[in-house]
């Protein structure tokens, strides 16, 4: 299997990356932008200085957490599009708890409890998707989209309503938390090791859980063949529910990072999930559901996201071109995998 992986899959992934780069280059050229220029801008925008690298790492942490969560739901064959809402609810719960306790408990305790609140908020929102699927026969994609929308509206309501800043009615966000409630960073390097370590631990734990625990094995069985898994006595409904909860919890933790992270805005604002959840879906797809690969891939996605901010700054281009490149990567991999499985079918 591993030989097969190195011999067949890796050349294909490389081919996919080259395909993606050339397709992006074509698009950029059509927009009369020099692709080389754009690529090198993105690269220097991501790694040009320690501060830039710090921002890449800042984006990496929530991406890792979301990817870890999605590895669980994807293993179970679920499309947890609702992950964005789960990030948002994690942020909402964390913010709520911090607002209540920030004046009565020491900051470290508040931060820790807020992390737990974030886990809880995301998990509840994730299990709601599972519940809708189980008891309402709502496909998790539609349920997730609906709940994303509700989570977004809820933040706007909270920001304009109960949690608004005194005398101000603006959707721009709640009152920022004081620096004592930020995760500590380094003096000249504004990225907290805590965020990254959490993300890496999450990926590693998910990898181990999927491979070596009964729960993980059952989830994979459900993901590959739900009917056979059921007939083998796997409690399918219960396990799927747990998968949603687990993914939601990790996404919720990402929401907490987006509130308290060293380089965050330190308040709750609409769209706080910032598309990290959706981006993580692309990461996990590109990693072919392999935990190990989602680490470097999420890192390079964070780099592309941060680096592409250079495009408007330097060349008056839209930064969403970074998204084009990421999307191209995923599409190319999917297309190449599709072609590969067609070949295999013909061979067989």
């Amino acid at each position, binding site marked *: 299997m591993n030989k097969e992986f190195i011999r067949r899959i890796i050349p294909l992934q490389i081919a996919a990356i080259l395909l993606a780069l050339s397709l992006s280059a074509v698009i950029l050229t059509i927009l009369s932008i020099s692709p080389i220029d754009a690529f090198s801008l993105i690269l220097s925008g991501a790694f040009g200085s320690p501060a830039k690298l710090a921002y890449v790492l800042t984006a990496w942490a929530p991406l890792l957490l979301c990817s870890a969560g999605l590895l669980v739901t994807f293993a179970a064959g679920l499309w947890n599009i609702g992950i964005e809402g789960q990030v948002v609810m994690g942020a909402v719960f964390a913010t709520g708890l911090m607002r209540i306790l920030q004046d009565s408990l020491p900051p470290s305790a508040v931060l820790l409890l807020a992390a737990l609140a974030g886990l809880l908020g995301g998990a509840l929102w994730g299990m709601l998707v599972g519940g809708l699927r189980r008891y309402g026969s709502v496909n998790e994609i539609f349920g997730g989209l609906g709940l994303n929308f509700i989570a977004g509206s809820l933040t706007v309501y909270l920001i304009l309503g109960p949690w608004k800043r005194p005398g101000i009615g603006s959707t721009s966000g709640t009152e920022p938390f004081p620096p004592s409630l930020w995760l500590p960073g380094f003096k000249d390097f504004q990225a907290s090791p805590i965020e990254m370590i959490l993300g890496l631990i999450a990926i590693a734990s998910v990898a181990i859980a999927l491979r*070596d625990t*009964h729960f993980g094995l059952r989830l994979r069985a459900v993901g590959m*063949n739900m009917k056979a*898994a059921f*007939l083998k*006595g*796997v409690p399918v409904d219960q396990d799927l529910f747990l998968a949603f909860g687990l993914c939601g919890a990790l996404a919720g933790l990402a929401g907490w990072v987006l509130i308290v992270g060293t380089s965050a805005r330190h308040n709750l604002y609409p769209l706080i999930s910032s598309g990290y959840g959706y981006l993580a879906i692309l990461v996990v797809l590109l990693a072919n559901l392999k935990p190990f690969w989602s680490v470097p891939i999420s890192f390079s996605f964070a780099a592309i996201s941060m680096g592409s901010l250079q495009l408007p700054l330097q060349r008056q281009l839209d930064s969403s071109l970074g998204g084009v490149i990421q999307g191209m990567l995923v599409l190319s991999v999917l297309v190449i995998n599709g072609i590969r499985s067609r070949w295999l079918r013909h061979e067989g």
Partner: protein
Amino acid sequence: MKVELKDIHKRFGPIQANDGITLSIEPGTLHGLLGENGAGKSTLMKVLSGFLSPDRGEIRLDNKTIRFDSPAEAVALGVGMLHQDPLDFPALRVIDNFLLGSPREFLLDRKYHQTRLAELANRFGFRLDPEARVSELSIGERQQLEIVRLLALGVNVLILDEPTTAISTQQRESLFRALSQLTEEGKTVIFVSHKLDEVKSLCSKVTVLAHGRVTGEAAMDCPTKELVKMMFGQVLTVGKRCEVRLGEPILELQNLSLSDWRLEVKDLSLKVQAGEVVGLAGLEGSGQQLVLRACAGLLRPSAGRIWIAHRDMTGRPYQDFIEASIGYMPAARLEEGLIAGMTLAEHIALTERGPSLFIDWTMAVERASQRIREFNIKGQPTTFVGNLSGGNQQRTLLSLLPSQPKLLLMEHPTRGLDMESMEYIWRLLQALTQQGTAILFISSDPEELLERSDRIAIFFGGKVRMMDTCGASLFDLGESIGGKGFE
């Protein structure tokens, strides 16, 4: 239109479904195609109607060699097939289905087509409401719609694959009348069935298939006995299991009624005792699978009760049935039985229950190796089940059954196995029955049924008849499967 098939070959993996079939059908006749399950009838007809392309061989229509790459091309050339399960779109209306795939016009003239639909339907005495939703129609009405649709497309050769399995007597009569009328109009009708009496009363000529070959052809005054011989061969096995000591009842069905969307089994009572082997015979889709799945807790009966080892299990979830020590083995290996992307060891670990969070892989691998030896599986504990051959998958499926179940429920336990492995598996199963396991199994191999069962439940269109195997002959069984004794 004259239809000729010459030397048709078609193979699916290890199975030679059609092995050099040559067959000629005169225009304007109603030709029967008779054969056991798996004889190759459906494959042959799918080849003729463009759903499958043959590996080798030739199709001639009116003395011209033709080749289709799709059913649409076949229809354009005049060959249309009515499938066992109508291939329509239940969410659409009758008229929309009627129009599907038909006119090459950009804007549809609905009025015109509605009249055409009504005209055609009236001609054959079908009653079809153009605005009704297809999902609300019965199977018989859906067949009628499909026939009318194919005729409107100008089909000259109409193939019907087991059309009477799920329709009412009235609908059957109206269908038969329509078919006779069609042949009078000069169309060629090919009627695929396993029901001897239907073929006898309807067709003018019949071709019998077995194991992918033509085993006989006869004009329709041929006696039933001859036809059965052609279907099942000359060797007539006789049931041998006569002296079996039976224990207490393991499975009791009381006035059980079951139904799915096409079939109903009514008021079935059956008692299976420890150590007993009951075979479920009949053509596929005659109700045996419904009963087996109900016994496994996968299908909720509409009436009646199911007892397993003196416990009322009616309406309980599948999990409870597992805990009551049943073992269920589905027919569809890779769809329901196994998980293609998992290894043998993972399958073993999956069926394991225990309080521990982590999997003991050493143990799982060890136990997988043990099963591999026991069941003679050609593979390693780390082999992906999807990479095993069909026979080895079947062995894997058997190896994963619980080790000492009270009740084993199996669909086609030895399908795809060679004689030797089949013998070996049955020896293992018989060892289980001696320890008190009761077995219920479905098979389409009459010899296996006769040889291995103590009793056979024969299913025909949802009705059940019990038969003692001791002293019964393959001929008796064949006749019953064909519907004798069910009138």
